[in-house]
């Protein structure tokens, strides 16, 4: 298991190099002079030159990259073109709200989605299956912003039970995490159901029944664990997407997260922040993929031992 982990961690290194190259190249690939872009449209020639020197853009590319890596590792990501704050601070402030919202949304939607999928898989073709499939189709197709607005209208505006938006205490998590998780739960339910149905037809499930294993145990011990691999893959992907911050949800619920930060940064052409966000999102995905690999190994001994 330790060798497996070490191999996976080592495997990340080339990915991270590619990611950093991309984030590094991002500003340099933009049309026009990055120094002029960063200095702003009203800057004088001298100011642009000053920016160029301060950013090290007058040095050879490989030196620039080395500097970039050194600074990134030290957490120096530059300053926001919009507010002048350090980028690390800007992103740090916005990261936690998105992370908590993601955890809240993933938490409930994974549990409910997987449970729904298993029920549908066990009761294949019966009313439980059909009901859950109607629910999941609705969950996937219902637009999130519309659902969010309806919920705000009902629970905040009419009933005054929950706040309309912003991040103030646990009650403010309920509506956005529910809205965010609906589509995830629906996708998880579909995936779980199809994986479950496939595994339920395997010979070893028949073997379990041949032994006289009670049906509940056939489902959880012999079928469920084997059906988990595609479910884990899907959960990892969803988690990665949500961690990027949902632009729609954060806008509807006035949530101070990464999604809105990205929109604002793009609107203001705040390149240092965009660059840092690219790096962060890529890093998150790499990390989640590692986690998914480790979970595979936990579930499946064949991956762990070979």
């Amino acid at each position, binding site marked *: 298991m330790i*060798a497996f982990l*070490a*191999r996976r961690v*080592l495997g990340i290194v080339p990915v991270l190099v590619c990611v950093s190259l991309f984030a590094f190249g991002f500003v340099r690939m933009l049309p026009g002079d990055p120094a002029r872009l960063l200095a702003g449209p009203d800057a004088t020639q001298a100011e642009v030159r000053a920016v160029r020197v301060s950013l090290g853009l007058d040095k050879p590319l490989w030196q620039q990259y080395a500097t970039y890596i050194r600074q990134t590792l030290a957490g120096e990501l530059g300053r926001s073109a919009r507010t002048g704050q350090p980028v690390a601070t800007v992103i740090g402030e916005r990261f936690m709200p998105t992370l908590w919202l993601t955890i809240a949304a993933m938490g409930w939607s994974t549990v409910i989605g997987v449970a729904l999928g298993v029920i549908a898989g066990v009761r294949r073709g019966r009313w439980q299956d059909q009901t859950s499939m109607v629910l999941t189709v609705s969950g996937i197709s219902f637009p999130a912003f519309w659902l969010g607005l309806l919920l705000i209208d009902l629970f905040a505006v009419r009933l005054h039970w929950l706040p309309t938006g912003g991040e103030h205490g646990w009650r403010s998590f309920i509506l956005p995490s529910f809205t965010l998780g609906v589509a995830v739960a629906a996708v998880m339910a579909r995936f779980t159901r199809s994986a479950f149905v496939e595994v339920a037809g*395997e*010979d*070893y499930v*028949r*073997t*379990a*029944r*041949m*032994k*006289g*294993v*009670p*049906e509940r145990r056939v489902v959880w*011990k*012999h079928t469920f*664990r*084997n059906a988990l691999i595609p479910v884990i893959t899907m959960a990892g992907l969803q988690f990665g997407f949500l961690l990027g911050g949902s632009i729609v949800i954060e806008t509807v619920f006035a949530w101070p997260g990464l999604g809105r930060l990205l929109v604002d940064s793009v609107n203001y052409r705040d390149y240092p922040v965009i660059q840092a966000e690219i790096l962060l999102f890529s890093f998150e995905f790499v990390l989640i993929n590692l986690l998914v690999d480790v979970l595979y190994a936990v*579930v*499946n*001994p*064949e991956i762990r*031992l*070979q």
Partner: protein
Amino acid sequence: MSSPSSSPSGRTASHPGEAPSAAPLLDVSGLTISFPAGRERVSVVQDVDLQVRPGETVAVVGESGSGKSVTALAVTRLLDYAGGRIDAGRAVFQLRDATSLDLARAPQERMRQLRGPEIAMVFQEPMTSLNPVLRIGDQIAEAVMLHQGLGGAAARQEARRMLERVRIPEAARQLDRYPFQLSGGMRQRVMIAIALSCRPRLLIADEPTTALDVTVQAQVLRLMHALQEELGMSLLFITHDMGVVAEIADRVVVMRSGRVVERGGVGEIFARPREDYTRRLLAAVPVLGSLAGQALPRPFPENGDEPPAQDTVEPAGPPVLEVERLVTRFEVKRGLLGRSGGRIHAVEHVSFAVRPGETLGLVGESGCGKSTTGRSILRLDRPEAGAIRLGGTDVSSLTPATEKLLRRAVQYVFQDPFASLDPRLTVGFSIAEPIRTHALLAGRAVEARVEELLEQVGLGGSYSRRYPHELSGGQRQRVCVARALASEPRLIIADEAVAALDVSIRSQVVNLLMALQRRLGVAYLFISHDMAVVERVAHRVAVMYLGQIVEIGPRDAVLGRPQHAYTQRLIAAVPIPDPARRGHARALDDSEVPSPMRRHDDPPAVAPLVRVGPDHYVARHKIGGLF
């Protein structure tokens, strides 16, 4: 309906502790089963009667689609989970507490309690029948804990005892292993251990040895027989293999298209079959030794007539194919940085030649390297060293010119007729593809040629517009043969080409291949694990073991007077479809074939073969501990 059985092995239909009563343990009558098909239901088993007495072995034989497996699933009621339904009939079972129960009507929860302690089942597919994520010990202990009420530690002890009972070496260590770490034969032993762990009174075995190699099959059959005597249980044995039936059964039930066509004692069925279908089934079974003393191959009898031997080899001129010291190895990566953990020596210094019009049978068990040899010749696997010559031309280095020559002159027929045709293309398109690729013909001439090829394989030109799913397994394999012929090859590598077919279809396809050889002079490299089929088709035989040829020579010499210990073992393991020559007396041989994977610093010994007779050569150096 049932006839009294006379057991040729001298066993009686009773065992200690059970009165020698005539009352069957299982009495199936009028069983009728259907499966859903679209909006309707298709009846797959009709009005089947079947009795199994205490301590007795009843074999249910039949070809695919005969309903034999479905009948077994119905008795355990695992049928319910497969979508089937019992429409009529009874399956009365005498329980341990001397009451009886109609299994066809019992509620599923009651059946669950019976599965294990009363009725257990072993399935055909050892590779997929064990749960891949659970340890073997836990999979056995689960059944023990459920039905014998033992705690975890005691159940583990019992699991170890069961593994010892099925003769798995180092049982204690195996408990913590996972299924993927065991070979197919070992997995099937684990399955048997699971089935026996609750001391069932009836064991149903559904083709338990079909997926196994012959030597492993012999081991498993003997093991089941020994365990049956030790535990005094009844055995309902489902198989398509008359050789296995002759080895193990007391009584036989022959099924066809969902009905019982004949039943009787095993001696009676083999000696005096009453039904035409049974006779044909028996006639189609290849019997190893039936061509003993004859030098030339001879097709299977058709309509009771023994066809003439065929002499098709052209001794003059260069061989179609010469293989010299062919080596194919696979690196096995492991460890932190993907260092090489060793090499699988799949093909190790293999040399042979095939003359025009000749069939060389390449035999051996799974993992011996026979398929890799075939694949290496066509460069589907990459050989590491060695020379390959086609009609005298060296094609060892794959240039565009030699590749073109190779791809046209050598064709392949694979084992699985279902997987080797593109389901979205018509049969005609698949056959025309090599003709177009090699630019042999153009325009309408291609269609005419496709029809001609289809005629040659006995299908008729109208088949060219059909899709693979409209054809049976035998028909598809004929299409594969037609496709192989399309480029007018001089050699066809047939890799287990008839292994997936029912016996009657198998003999037809073998006869077709031989007829084509007669007509077209094509040579075959006939790769097979089935010694009896090889005896029919091959002029010469090469036996492979652990990547090396251990014996090669004229067919009659190698099969009739085998000189290498491994050849002798292989031949001894082949079941003989004659209950009078039953081989139970042979000792249980638990040896496993060693792994062809070796460390880099530990290469296998290789040496030239030694001549022991005319054109007959044997390895005299040690390979895997055998001479």
